[in-house]
């Protein structure tokens, strides 16, 4: 008979299980009756015959089981084991709940973090074949990834041979007129094939057509899905409508799909074609675009990069004035968007993994303790005929059951944690990478949880087996499972605890380093008084305020309005607020110095006279600050920062020196009139850059920031300020109101830092609790095993304090080894996360010492409880009990 038929018959039997048992019983009863009859025929009484037949027939139950085994599936005995395991766990709910909770914690945390890593690394971008889309940028010796000029972009697009398409994008802002209020909306300006290059299809309407991005092209716009919903109620007839952007009518031609996102311009509400060239885009030396390209089939990023470098080199020969030293820098777009998040995610994943290790170690040692206390049960079952394989299987089933329950609970935990993390995730971070939207429990995360559970269950199933295999069941029985007291296990358990403590130290140290780094970050020298400063951004529409003179007229009006608000001490204007970024730069040349076309890059800030001395309270080192006289009618002057003075005027007095652009155009020349102490313009963890300040009255901006110093609560002032500026002219876009303190607190670096510290800190606390509980368990177990020994010692005259010391010494040794190992590993881990630390080194002594002290303290506390119990042992009882 073939295997198939046999299997089928088994399946049938499985469902006819009841009939099978009844049949077998009846058959055997018949057999016994016949035997009894036969014996009766030989002269026995009916009663004697019945008994004799029963005796001869043997153990009916055993026989039934054997028949069952023949026809049954192996799985059925597994089910039996399972029932038994469930019974065992229910008998001991404390153990089961603890173990499942620990596993749920470990598996849940690592699965949740994996969910983010998975989303970030595997499906980062919602485009067609995202791994063929590259970021294309110009590189200079100082700037590895710089903007392209429009002329360069057009040449690159035409001359390259490795990209099937190359398209440019840049940010833009428009004033969207809605009713009587003008709202500034962030937007993107792109070349015609931009969405095609990304491989994005419109949800509604159409994409830009070839040629629509030329100067003088149509005024049309594509909306983001969110904008379409928010501003057009998601109506299909939104297509074809006209919106007023900074006074110009634009026709809406398309709507992007809901899942579209483009992190470099994450907040763009609408997209328009590049269109007319502004002043900047007519110059080859003015760089304002970035580009994305799609690789041709069979082309690698390196090949495309080499090709672009060739193009750049050709252009450098053709246009030496603007393109000297300019190369090309290509990378996968996904690398640009999520590259910086990768180390963070990996670190968090490592942290979660370590937590999982601790949880597993803890559960394993719990299982060990249990298998130890069940040695007698095992011995009895062995003596009654259970084969070792069967016993081992029983224990493995229990381990598996725990792991499966833990995994189930873990997936639930993971779901909760992902939701929690998403809520906690800093706004900036959540806005940036598009993948975060898709994080959740799905195939990948479930597979991961499954794999983790598999490994965990393997570990959990194997520990007691290891333990059993190494112990002879019969010795266990004869010894009454006592004296040998599992020296092996105690060592294994102790080893597990050492591992736990080591891991806990690493996590604590990591969290400690990050915490310290965060503190440093928030307390970095800003170079100005960050308190009582309120800021907002103003944008003036070109239609109403077309010329620089018109913008300049706005300043005194806004100033007098704001000065009349209660508590306001000073009002100032600037092109860029501090603690933003080391951007908005200019290339300079110093008069009377040899010059070979180097890119001397410095920050450029336009400020009003009150800005530096009164609002920011910057420190003047020498010379003077700006006055109201530094306007368009007077020669241009500049105030530089200390870093610039040191870098470009080492060992000389910068006052009176003249700076200009690369060609030293007479119009660009300005005289240094003052030097101030550095104000941190960039992110808190960026090094200060050389900076040049100009009078905003000399070169007004149509988009500027207002900074106000007040005597009172700056936060309460913000809405008043917004109202006051809006009253001046409803056409003005007013946005981005924030206090200086808020801005520093919420800088991207600080937020990400805080988020990481919080998470790793949470991991560390959990690790601390778990490992200390583990230590406590191991020491307590050891005490329970040594009760008799302690009894003997006390009977022989040992003092309670000596017993106390004995136990504390044991715990202290374990803790000591764990902490020492942990500190070593922590330095290694710290070195690996060096790039994420600010102002703290991996071997930061105070952090490491603090961690050692905290863990040591807790370990002492944990071993104190069992030590006390040991010291309270009554020698008489201890000796008699066994």
């Amino acid at each position, binding site marked *: 008979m073939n295997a198939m038929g046999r299997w089928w018959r088994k399946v049938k039997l499985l469902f006819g299980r009841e009939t099978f048992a009844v049949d077998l019983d009846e*058959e*055997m009863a018949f*057999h016994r009756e*016949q035997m009894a009859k036969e014996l009766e025929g030989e002269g026995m009484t009916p009663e004697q015959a019945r008994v004799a037949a029963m005796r001869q027939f043997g*153990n009916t139950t055993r026989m039934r089981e054997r028949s069952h085994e*023949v026809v049954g599936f192996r799985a059925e005995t597994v089910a039996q084991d399972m029932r038994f395991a469930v019974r065992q766990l229910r008998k001991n709910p404390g153990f089961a709940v603890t173990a499942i909770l620990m596993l749920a914690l470990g598996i849940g945390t690592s699965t949740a973090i994996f969910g983010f890593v998975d989303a970030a690394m595997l499906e980062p971008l919602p485009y067609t074949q995202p791994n063929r889309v590259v970021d294309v940028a110009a590189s200079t010796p100082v700037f590895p990834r710089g903007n392209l000029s429009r002329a360069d972009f057009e040449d690159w697009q035409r001359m390259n041979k490795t990209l099937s398409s190359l398209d440019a994008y840049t940010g833009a802002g428009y004033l969207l007129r809605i009713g009587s209020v003008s709202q500034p909306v962030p937007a993107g300006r792109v070349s015609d094939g931009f969405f095609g290059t990304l491989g994005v299809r419109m949800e509604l309407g159409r994409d830009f057509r070839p040629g629509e991005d030329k100067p003088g092209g149509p005024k049309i716009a594509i909306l983001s899905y969110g904008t379409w919903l928010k501003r057009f109620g998601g109506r299909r007839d939104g297509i074809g409508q006209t919106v007023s952007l900074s006074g110009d009518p634009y026709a809406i031609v398309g709507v992007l799909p809901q899942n579209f996102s483009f992190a470099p311009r994450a907040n763009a509400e609408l997209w328009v074609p590049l269109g007319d060239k502004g002043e900047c885009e007519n110059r080859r030396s003015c760089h304002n675009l970035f580009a994305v390209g799609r690789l041709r089939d069979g082309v690698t990023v390196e090949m495309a990069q080499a090709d672009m470098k060739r193009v750049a080199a050709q252009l450098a020969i053709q246009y030496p004035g603007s393109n000297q030293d300019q190369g090309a820098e290509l990378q996968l777009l996904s690398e640009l968007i999520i590259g910086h998040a990768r180390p963070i995610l990996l670190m968090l994943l490592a942290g979660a993994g370590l937590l999982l290790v601790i949880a597993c170690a803890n559960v394993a040692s719990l299982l060990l303790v249990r298998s130890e206390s069940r040695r007698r049960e095992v011995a009895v079952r062995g003596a009654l005929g259970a084969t070792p394989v069967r016993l081992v299987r029983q224990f493995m089933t229990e381990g598996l059951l725990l792991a499966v329950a833990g995994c189930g609970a873990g997936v639930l935990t993971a779901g909760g944690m992902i939701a929690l993390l998403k809520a906690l995730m800093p706004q900036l971070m959540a806005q940036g990478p598009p993948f975060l939207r898709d994080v959740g429990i799905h195939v990948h995360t479930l597979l991961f949880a499954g794999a983790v559970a598999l490994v965990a269950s393997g570990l959990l199933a194997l520990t007691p087996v290891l333990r059993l295999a190494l112990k002879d069941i019969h010795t266990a029985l004869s010894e009454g499972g006592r004296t040998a007291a599992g020296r092996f296990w105690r060592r294994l358990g102790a080893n597990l605890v050492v591992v736990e403590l080591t891991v806990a130290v690493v996590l604590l140290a990591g969290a400690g380093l990050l915490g310290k780094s965060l503190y440093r970050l928030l307390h970095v020298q800003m170079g100005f008084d960050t308190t009582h400063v309120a800021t907002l951004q103003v944008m003036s529409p070109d239609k109403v305020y077309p010329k620089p003179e018109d913008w300049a007229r706005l300043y005194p009006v806004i100033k007098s309005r704001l000065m009349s608000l209660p508590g306001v001490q000073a009002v100032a204007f600037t092109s860029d607020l501090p603690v933003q970024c080391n951007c908005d730069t200019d290339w300079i040349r110093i008069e009377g110095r040899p010059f070979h076309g180097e890119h001397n890059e410095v920050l450029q800030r336009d400020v009003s006279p009150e800005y530096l001395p009164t609002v920011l309270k910057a420190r003047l080192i020498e010379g003077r600050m700006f006055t109201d006289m530094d306007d368009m009618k007077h020669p241009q002057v500049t105030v530089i920062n200390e870093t610039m003075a040191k870098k470009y005027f080492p060992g000389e007095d910068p006052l009176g020196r003249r700076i200009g652009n690369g060609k030293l155009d007479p119009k660009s020349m300005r005289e240094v009139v003052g030097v101030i102490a550095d104000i941190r313009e960039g992110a808190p963890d960026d090094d200060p850059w050389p900076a040049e300040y100009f009078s905003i009255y000399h070169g007004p901006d149509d988009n500027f920031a207002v900074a106000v110093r007040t005597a009172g609560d700056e936060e309460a002032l913000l809405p008043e300020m917004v109202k006051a500026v809006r009253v001046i002219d409803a056409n003005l876009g007013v946005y981005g109101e924030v206090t200086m303190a808020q801005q520093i607190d919420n800088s991207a670096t600080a937020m990400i830092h805080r988020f990481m510290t919080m998470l790793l800190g949470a991991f560390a606390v959990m690790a601390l609790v778990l490992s200390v509980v583990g230590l406590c368990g191991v020491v307590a177990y050891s005490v329970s095993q040594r009760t008799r020994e302690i009894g003997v010692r006390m009977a022989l005259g040992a003092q309670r304090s000596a017993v106390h010391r004995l136990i504390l010494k044991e715990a202290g040794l374990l803790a000591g080894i764990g902490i020492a190992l942990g500190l070593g590993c922590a330095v290694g881990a710290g070195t690996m996360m060096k790039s994420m630390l600010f102002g703290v080194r991996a071997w930061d002594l105070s952090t490491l010492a603090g961690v050692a002290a905290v863990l040591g303290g807790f370990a002492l506390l944990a071993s104190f409880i069992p030590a006390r119990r040991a010291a309270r042992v009554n020698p008489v009882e201890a000796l008699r009990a066994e």
Partner: protein
Amino acid sequence: MANKPELMPGTLDMLILQTLKRAPLHGYGIAQSIRRVSDEVLTVEEGSLYPALQRLLLQGWVKAEWKMTETNRRARFYTLTAAGKKQLGIELTKFEQMVAAIGRVLRAAEEAG
């Protein structure tokens, strides 16, 4: 019962099949038949008989049905199937080969001795 020879391993299935070749029998009948025919030399342990019957059923070599005995008791009768007959042939051949082989070894040992 102490000195009765053990059934040679692997032969029980063959014996059952052979017994059933003559007529369908119930479990007790099979045990009795083997004992009687072997002149009380071979005893089938009940502990092995029923698992063996289940095994044969599973292989499809025998089939079982409930019938009445001569004494009007319900009993489960086992019948040899066609597949069972074929299997019996195979097992008999194997067994004879083995017996012959053992015989040769024993004779060789005698001659040598």
